[in-house]
């Protein structure tokens, strides 16, 4: 075991290397490019056997990835943002082929306006594709999740592609101490790829991805995929148990952070959860009973576990680093649905939007969230999602508008 300072991108590349991925089709996009550059070096110097190939687009890249997996080779790919949505059609296709592969997405806000900072609208656009989704908070978790992802993807109960998400810049370009598992231990955790689905061989012709023209039959296959995605919970649990035994790190479908006896819970995903945890430490030292639920497995959505974990809370606030225009925060509605389905009704359930396009969520904004939740009452009536914004940021926006020649007649409130 080696402990090194690695970026999230390097950690993702190490995950693919330790998983002994043999095929990497690639297309560059910021802030993911370091992953494929690192892998290209390793294929070039022979430390990764197999083939690295550059494609003309993410759409082609993911088609090649799915086709190679359908032929029985362990495959890895990585993308971000525009690339993920450019490939979106193929995400649905390869999930429908029921082929295991791992795709890393480095989250970045979507155009227009085009930007570079992270938020989760890109990865959540892929939430209905049939891909299993794991969202990492740290660089260590990126590496570990890639290994776990192959165990889930190749599990006979699942046989589906898995997406591992990390936030652009905050993880992709941030160095953290990462334990790199030894290759033989990684091999003990993840054996060779033995396809459970039929693969292309001369002696056994197979038709894959064929048309289905009857609604009943289509429903059958789609529902079968739904059940297979649900099976990822059991596959993850089994893999995480082995992982903890071998490497000492434990992962759940969700992470409960100081939620024991908590009155107030924040729900978040991704690297910004680290900021929330810092706020929780501060609040706990003031005697306030608050914790964080981090969404790690996003598909399948661990509704029962979320509901059970939040069952004792008086107030729940979901901070979405995404925005579904006209609806609000995506996770807020998924959490609300999970709670309703499991008949868990926290008296206060509020929605906050923060961190779009990499905008910071400051400790002052976390304080505002907590104060809002603590002072709210069960029968306050409906509340819209609240966009988190600081005075400083607002002044900066007004400054930019003024520079652009836009007049602002009303004073900001």
């Amino acid at each position, binding site marked *: 075991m080696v402990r090194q300072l690695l970026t999230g991108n390097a950690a993702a590349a190490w995950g693919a290397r330790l998983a002994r991925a*043999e*095929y990497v*089709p690639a297309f560059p996009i910021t802030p993911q490019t370091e992953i494929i550059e690192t892998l290209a070096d390793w294929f070039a110097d022979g430390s990764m*056997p*197999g*083939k690295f*190939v*550059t*494609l*003309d*687009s993410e*759409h*082609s*890249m993911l*088609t*090649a*990835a*799915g*086709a*190679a*997996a*359908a*032929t*029985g*080779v362990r*495959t890895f790919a990585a993308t971000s943002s525009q690339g993920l949505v450019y490939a979106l*059609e*193929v995400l649905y*296709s390869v999930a429908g082929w029921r082929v295991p592969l791992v795709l890393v997405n480095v989250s970045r806000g979507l155009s227009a306006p085009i930007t570079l900072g992270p938020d989760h609208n890109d990865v959540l656009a892929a939430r209905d594709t049939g891909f299993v989704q794991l969202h990492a908070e740290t660089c260590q978790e990126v590496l570990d999740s890639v290994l776990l992802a192959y165990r889930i993807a190749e599990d006979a109960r699942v046989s589906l592609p898995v997406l591992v998400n990390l936030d652009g810049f905050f993880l992709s370009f941030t160095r953290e101490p990462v334990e790199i598992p030894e290759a033989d231990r990684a091999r003990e955790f993840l054996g060779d790829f033995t396809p459970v689905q039929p693969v*292309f*061989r*001369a*002696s056994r*012709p*197979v*038709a*894959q*991805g*064929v*048309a*289905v*023209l009857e609604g009943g*039959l289509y429903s059958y296959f789609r529902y079968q995929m739904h059940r297979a995605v649900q099976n990822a919970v059991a596959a993850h649990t089994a893999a995480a148990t082995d992982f903890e035994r071998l490497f000492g790190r434990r992962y759940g479908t969700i992470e409960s952070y100081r939620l024991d006896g908590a009155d107030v819970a924040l729900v978040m995903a991704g690297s910004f959860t680290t900021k929330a945890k810092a706020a929780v430490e501060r609040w706990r030292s003031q005697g306030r009973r608050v914790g964080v639920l981090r969404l790690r497995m996003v598909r399948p959505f661990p509704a029962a576990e979320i509901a059970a974990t939040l069952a004792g809370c008086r107030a729940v606030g979901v901070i979405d680093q995404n925005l579904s225009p006209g609806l609000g925060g995506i996770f807020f509605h998924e959490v609300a649905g999970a709670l309703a389905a499991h008949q868990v009704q926290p008296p206060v359930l509020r929605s906050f939007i923060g961190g779009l396009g990499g905008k910071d969520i400051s400790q002052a904004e976390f304080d505002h969230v907590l104060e809002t939740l603590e002072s709210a009452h069960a029968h306050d009536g409906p509340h819209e999602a609240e966009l988190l914004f600081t005075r400083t940021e607002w002044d900066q926006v007004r400054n930019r508008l003024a520079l652009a020649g836009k007049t602002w007649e009303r004073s900001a409130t």
Partner: protein
Amino acid sequence: MRVAREHFKSPKGLPVEEYLTPGSPLCAGCGGLTTLRLMHKVLGENVVIVNAAGCMTLLATFPFTPLKSSWLYTTMASASAGAQGVRDALDILRDSGRLPPQEDLQVLVLAGDGSTYDMGLSSTSSAIHRGLDFWYLCYDNEAYGNTGFQLSSASPEASHTSTSIDLIHQRKKDLFEIWRAHHPAYLASVSAHDAVDLAEKVERARSLRGPKLFLSLAVCPTGWGFDPEWGDELAHLAVETGVWPLKEAVAGVVRHTYIPNRFRPIADYLEPQRRFRHLFQPHRNEAVLAQMQAEVDAYWAGLGTESTLTPRAPETEHAPRV
């Protein structure tokens, strides 16, 4: 005038094996299906067909397939990238000793003109650029046939489609030249009418490593508007009028494999088709017909240095109108 045939002397010499069995949901008289059947006979059975969205996508409809070979439906735009993934995976398995040679497969992309000329062009350009060892068959019926015959960039001048607005100014993209500019290992235009020419080309390409691209004019009874029994005659007329040149390019060098001794006037090919009826009824549109004839004449007159089988000046049965 035709080039010397090296492998097949006559249709009787073609392989008797069939890998495309009778019974598919495709239209009667589909020229694309005949092309696939002929090409498959020569390629043999160890093939995985990587399909782009189009008419042929309905060949494999769960739980049926008329093919004895393997099949992977991808998307409309990325079949060539799918071929890349299959080929690369087979190579990885073979090179690491996990795929016995007899289990290896040839990879064949099967795509219509809508995919090939339009949204699939990027992934195919990139596959040719990488020198991918694969076969590509474009069944070109000159429109989006599967969805009701809408305009594609393969739709020729004056052909009526269900979305043609400016019939006279629409032009067919010269895909052969677009592909040739990539310097693929092998490139050919073929016709289901000339099975021996088609088989010869497949056989000549077989020994070449890299992209082996086939562009077939696929007669389309439903879209073009003719009785299916006339399909072969129309395919024949397309060649004999010079509208559809039969040629090949090895490492970029073009050779015509058949040049009619006497070119039939293109009206012979156009008039039987409903999509060109407006050129003949209620009045014969001489100006447009002359323009179209002139373009075909110019193609053949312009051949010379780039063709190893140098064509003679076209001998049309009528004098081109000026």
